[in-house]
């Protein structure tokens, strides 16, 4: 794909430890600024959402991927292209619901938590909740309303990190009001 080669930002590598530490600093600051874990989780989700609505444009421009035909294809693209592109890891897609509207992303390794241990007084903190916000924001921009949450987290003693995604509805495009 020759179009990608003339992009100035391509192949620019970033030190992953710097990335991990920066994210850690961000979460730490949020914990200082807000009273409780609930509120921090909410803020992380909100920030992620705002990242997601912009990141999707970068993703589409870079990957030249068109519209997905169904939710299964969406799941594959998220796991194999998006996670690989932005986090350098490829989660596996499993635990499909019988109706095909819900699945899990299992992360073998989550670069955000490389140096992290949750202290006892933050047991309800969803440390990587930013990811949920990003996924929600990005998919909303391509007309998919989804519910995204952490089902398991190695930080909280689970064996794997599992992000559960549920398809809610397709957002239909409407003609703006008063446009006759």
């Amino acid at each position, binding site marked *: 794909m020759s179009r990608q080669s003339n992009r*100035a930002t391509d192949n620019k590598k970033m030190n992953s430890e710097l990335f991990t530490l920066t994210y850690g600093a961000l979460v730490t600051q949020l914990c200082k600024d807000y009273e409780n874990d609930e509120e921090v989780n909410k803020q992380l989700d909100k920030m992620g959402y705002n990242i997601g609505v912009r990141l999707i444009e970068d993703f589409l421009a870079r990957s030249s991927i068109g519209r997905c035909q169904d939710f299964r294809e969406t799941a594959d693209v998220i796991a194999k292209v998006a996670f690989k592109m932005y986090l350098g890891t490829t989660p596996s897609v499993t635990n499909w619901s019988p109706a095909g509207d819900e699945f899990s992303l299992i992360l073998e390794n989550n670069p955000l938590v490389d140096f992290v241990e949750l202290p006892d007084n933050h047991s309800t903190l969803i440390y990587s909740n930013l990811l949920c916000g990003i996924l929600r924001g990005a998919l909303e*921009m391509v007309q998919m309303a989804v519910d995204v949450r952490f089902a398991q987290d190695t930080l909280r003693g689970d064996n794997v990190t599992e992000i559960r995604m549920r398809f809610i509805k397709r957002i239909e495009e409407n003609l703006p009001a008063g446009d006759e």
Partner: protein
Amino acid sequence: MRVADRLEAEAKMTVHNLYIFDRNGNCLFYNEWNRKKQAGISKDEEFKLMYGMLFSIKSFVNKMSPLDMKEGFLSFQTSKYKLHFYETPTGLKFVLNTDLSVSNARDSLQHLYSNIYVEHVVKNPLVPEAQTLDSEIFCSKLDSFIKALPFYSPRAA
């Protein structure tokens, strides 16, 4: 085609104007290069008319298609101009009017999206969402991109 006709056609190759709409139908950006005749209505009305037409054509084309299709509506032409349409999965719409000799502007519009819009608008945190674009760098990059297109020719102006 006679040589004289072909030369004339080449001299006429040109870009008339460009609209960029967001997913809600707001016109984010408009500029014209070689447009000799105006619509005779206010720009706001013109944008609404354009968006409404695109919306209707899109749904018409989808309903009437005898086969499942991915991209849908790409362009139409009249006796005087050709309208090229490119929509991203996020609902951004790029509309470029050129003269009839431009057969395909899809790659150019795609390039405009991924290398100019995404680079200078989406990645610029100071450009607020869902408003008219007045980013100087975006406007100047876009202008030089359009003027560098193989089918842009000011001679027709």
